[in-house]
């Protein structure tokens, strides 16, 4: 199942609409890396606002996706993690280890515009 991806300027905007099983997270990683290369996008905005939870496996996949995208010369921003999901992640002991996070898509684009020095991390 491919994730819907929209290209807007230098950004790839990816929406995760429902809970992903493990193999779908792995598929998402492969898809995003190949789309970053094919499109020449400078950033990937990963909208997670519809996810019910983020557990340890999902957090590990997000870190892996974010770092691999960075190694392809682009930036990854996770967008829309809700307050309840964020609280449960912190209680569980999860962090996103240097992957930038933003409240919504506007916030993410603003973050990217201000450049790497200004961005704050979700860890």
């Amino acid at each position, binding site marked *: 199942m491919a994730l819907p991806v929209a290209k807007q300027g230098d950004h790839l905007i990816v929406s995760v609409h429902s809970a992903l099983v493990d193999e779908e997270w792995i598929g998402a990683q492969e898809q995003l890396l190949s789309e970053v290369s094919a499109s020449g996008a400078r950033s990937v905005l990963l909208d997670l606002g519809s996810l019910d939870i983020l557990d340890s496996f999902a957090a590990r996949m997000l870190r892996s996706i974010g770092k691999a995208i960075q190694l392809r010369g682009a930036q990854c921003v996770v967008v829309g993690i809700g307050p309840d999901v964020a609280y449960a992640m912190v209680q*569980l002991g*999860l962090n996103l280890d240097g992957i930038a996070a933003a409240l919504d898509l506007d916030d993410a684009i603003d973050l990217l515009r201000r450049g790497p020095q200004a961005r704050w991390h979700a860890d």
Partner: protein
Amino acid sequence: MLTRTLVQVVTDRDIVTARVRGRLLASELGFQMGDLVVIATAISEVARNIVRYATQGGVEIEPLDDGRHRGIQIVARDQGPGIEDVALALEDGYTTGGGLGVGLPGCRRLMDDFEITSSAGQGTTVVMRKWLD
């Protein structure tokens, strides 16, 4: 429909089924949004442990009412290899399965009650509860 439900856990798809069922029951019991996410996250972690370490088992989700308090109980049970050192498995960062090592200690923080019974060769049972009031 506040009844006990058992989800067989074999594949990663069953992890999602278990947490969706748990969240539904918790919601019917009257848990609010923050607790629903907490309960679903804890179920996801214990179900994942079954898939990762034991290959199969089950997650039983049931309403609790001891006369004074109501809540939800989650029992994750498998007949897998068991955990040699339970105290060590409850330490943050300890893993034998290539994960982050946050699952069990994290679930203990997420839930109100957390008990684990395991020994090498005997499988593992995790009992977790969250109380409403």
